[in-house]
């Protein structure tokens, strides 16, 4: 039981990161391999603010989110727009954006190494026990989960209840047709990309309260987020959340019952199962 709840708490945080990536991939069509680095940057910011000026991570995110939004908007405008213009087909854009964001991830890791050094960093925040159905959990994990629920809920409502959200879903479904009905695809793609980056950075800030990170851990999170996005279905918030919770639970079970060093193997096992049996995602429809 406690393994299950630990897994759900972890999965909630994964959902936050994966939704960030899903916005970037589902709408802006950029497979962002630098997503994990954005997460680590978020974690670093929270760490720095907490140890140097004593700011709580809960408050840091209010500064972090707009900054990360701006940074990702710039990345899209400066780095991705030339690729979007150059690409003749979607496949070409996919290859180019994978290469470009892969390079970007190395640049970001390099910058973080230069600024912070290669050490692991962690800090103690809300590391107090809390009891849920008879077992004790750390409050910081619960807090991260609650914030993830709130943010995922807001994004879900925004995508499904507002006009901007509808336009974004239209772009995700049919970018060419969206243009014909008067949607400014390029502007909204940039905004969605930036929003996805901001969500990921915020997720990183919460994760840093209970996980130890270092400058080069980003790629593991990128990988997990990618697996969740594929499992949940590209552009599908509901599927992403379910997939993230599943992955969180599975990882907790593997870590508790077999070995904590095999969490990635667990994620891969899940990935292979999905690829073999439901490549269109949990709730996806078969492509015609």
């Amino acid at each position, binding site marked *: 039981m406690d393994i299950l709840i630990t897994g759900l708490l972890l999965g909630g945080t994964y959902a936050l990161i994966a939704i960030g990536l899903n916005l970037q991939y589902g709408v802006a069509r950029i*497979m962002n*391999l630098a997503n994990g680095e954005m997460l680590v940057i978020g974690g670093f910011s929270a760490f720095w603010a907490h140890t140097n000026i004593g700011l709580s991570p809960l408050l840091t995110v209010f500064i972090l989110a707009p900054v990360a939004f701006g940074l990702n908007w710039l990345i899209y405008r400066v*780095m991705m727009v*030339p690729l979007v213009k*150059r690409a003749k087909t979607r*496949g070409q854009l*996919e*290859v*180019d954006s*994978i*290469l*470009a964001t*892969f*390079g*970007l*991830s*190395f*640049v*970001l*890791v*390099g*910058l973080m*190494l*230069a600024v912070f050094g290669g050490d692991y960093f962690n800090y103690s925040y809300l590391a107090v026990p809390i009891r849920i159905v008879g077992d004790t959990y750390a409050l910081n994990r619960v807090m991260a989960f609650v914030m993830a629920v709130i943010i995922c809920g807001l994004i879900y409502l925004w995508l499904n209840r507002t006009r901007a959200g509808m336009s974004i879903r239209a772009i995700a479904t049919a970018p060419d047709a969206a243009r014909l009905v008067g949607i400014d695809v390029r502007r909204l793609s940039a905004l969605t990309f930036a929003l996805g980056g901001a969500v990921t950075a915020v997720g990183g800030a919460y994760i840093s309260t209970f996980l130890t990170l270092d400058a080069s851990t980003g*790629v*593991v999170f*990128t*990988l997990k987020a*990618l*697996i969740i996005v*594929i499992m949940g279905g590209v552009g599908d918030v509901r599927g992403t959340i379910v997939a993230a919770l599943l992955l969180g639970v599975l990882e907790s079970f593997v870590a508790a019952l077999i*070995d904590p*060093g*095999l969490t*990635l*193997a667990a*994620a*891969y096992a899940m*990935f*292979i199962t999905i*690829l*073999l049996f439901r*490549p269109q995602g949990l709730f996806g429809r078969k492509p015609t």
Partner: protein
Amino acid sequence: MTLPDWKTVGGAAVLFGLAALLPYSGSGYYLGLGITIAMFAVLATSWALFSGPTHYISLATAAFFGVGTYVTGLGFEALPYWTLPLIAGVAGAVLAGLVGLATLRLSGVYFVIFTLGLAELVRQIITWSQNRSGQKGLYVLTDMTEAGIYWQLLGLAAAVFLAGWLIARSRLGFALRIIGDDETVAAHSGINTALAKVLLFMVSGGVAAMVGAILAPRFVYIEPSLAFAPILSFQVVIMALLGGTGRLWGPLVGVIPFTFLLEAIASNFPNQTTLALGVAFLVIVYLLPRGFVGLIEDAKARMRRTEGAL
């Protein structure tokens, strides 16, 4: 074979013969550099064999390389030395085949994601089994000399070039070029696209594992985090792209200058290698999308046009 073919083969043979003389220069530094260049030349060329025509980006070189080093590390005491690269090649090809069967039937994105974490996955599994058996790293103590490693790599490079040249002229190579241009067209003209892709990926993975097996004696001590360093995959991709993947000799053109660049970066800014690599990567993606090969071919085309105008 026609006369130009014989010229190409003969020219390549002369170049390889010259390269084989390097250990007699007597300089350990140049020999070390030669090994690095030969290693990256084999890795980048075999990477481009698959990724060049198909445009599927494999980030798994480090995984195959690591598997190869472990084959040598585990087997050098029990088996004759010459069998190890062969076993490693088979192991790498089998691993590549499994990955290919799981992902290459689907769109390219799944393949990229899967290969991105493959090295980390194999590393976790090896670390886990080592923890269970209580063993840490492996000592690889053989009487293999640097020159021996160099010659083996050179021989492997020759084999890869020959294989690449033959594949390009075979039905398989033709099929792959069509897949790279338009996969739907390829499928409709009766090409078994998944099979063609998996086969070539197995060649590429097998060769990378052989390189790992050959280089293992040089490490002396191997442990998972050394054998599966993910940066290797990255370096191979960047070198192949710098040279250009459109021609068989393209990656080689990228490997030689980039090895010197790496050397310069490592000696001048030892703490900023990751950053420098990332910047180099972005420069290539944005400014040299077709690599040096693209530049050379553009220059040739321009010369032909000016000749025509006269």
